[in-house]
């Protein structure tokens, strides 16, 4: 049986691009949120709830959250790939990382959309 070749050109390119695309989404969100906070969007709890609960942020914050989860998945996966040599341990850590990040993402969206 011919072994599947898992290395070579373009293997991993998709994740590489997604890591950068999600980084751009998060950077833009950070700048927008930073400007909104400087403009007084977090001066008290009422304005903070109003800021995060308004239509625009209800739309873009989940995009930030999903970008963060995917970005963190690629980054942490690279870490396990770099330092954990035992395949069984590494694959277990991969699964745990995915479960944790999916849980965080759902929790975060629920915090935002409950407003």
């Amino acid at each position: 049986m011919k072994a599947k070749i898992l290395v070579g050109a373009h293997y991993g390119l998709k994740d590489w691009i997604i890591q950068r695309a999600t980084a751009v989404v998060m950077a833009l969100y950070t700048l927008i949120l930073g400007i909104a906070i400087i403009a007084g969007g977090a001066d008290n709890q009422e304005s903070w709830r109003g800021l995060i609960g308004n239509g625009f942020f209800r739309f873009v914050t989940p995009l930030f959250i999903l970008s963060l989860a995917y970005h963190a998945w690629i980054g942490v996966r690279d870490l396990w790939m770099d330092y954990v040599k035992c395949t069984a341990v590494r694959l277990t850590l991969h699964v745990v990382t995915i479960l944790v990040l999916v849980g965080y993402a759902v929790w975060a969206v629920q915090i935002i959309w409950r407003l």
Partner: protein
Amino acid sequence: MPELTKQRPKYLAINEIRLPVPGFVSILHRVSGVGLFLALPFLLCLLQLSLGSAAEFQTFKAIVGHPLAKLVLFGLCWAYLHHFCAGIRFLLLDVHVGIEKEQARASAKGVLVVSLGLTVIVALKFLGVF
């Protein structure tokens, strides 16, 4: 196998080897990313409390008012800002902006200075200095 047992001279002076500034920024990018990942549940708890009921908001204020929490939050603030600035530098390097050695060193120093500077500004604002 005589060639394997032959003593070969080594000139590694560990105390004189320095990681270049771009390498330092790179490893800090990884360290800050790990720190932020590990802090996610703590940060989500704070977000939930800050957006919750009036009582929950008081709990949020009590937590962020604690000196130890402040220290952790300033650390995380630096981690976020460093990851942000170094990330932008990496994106520019990806599109071949500033890849010459001198420029790359200068931008690496810039990342360290800007992220630390912004962290100090945020920390001073948070502490109510201005």
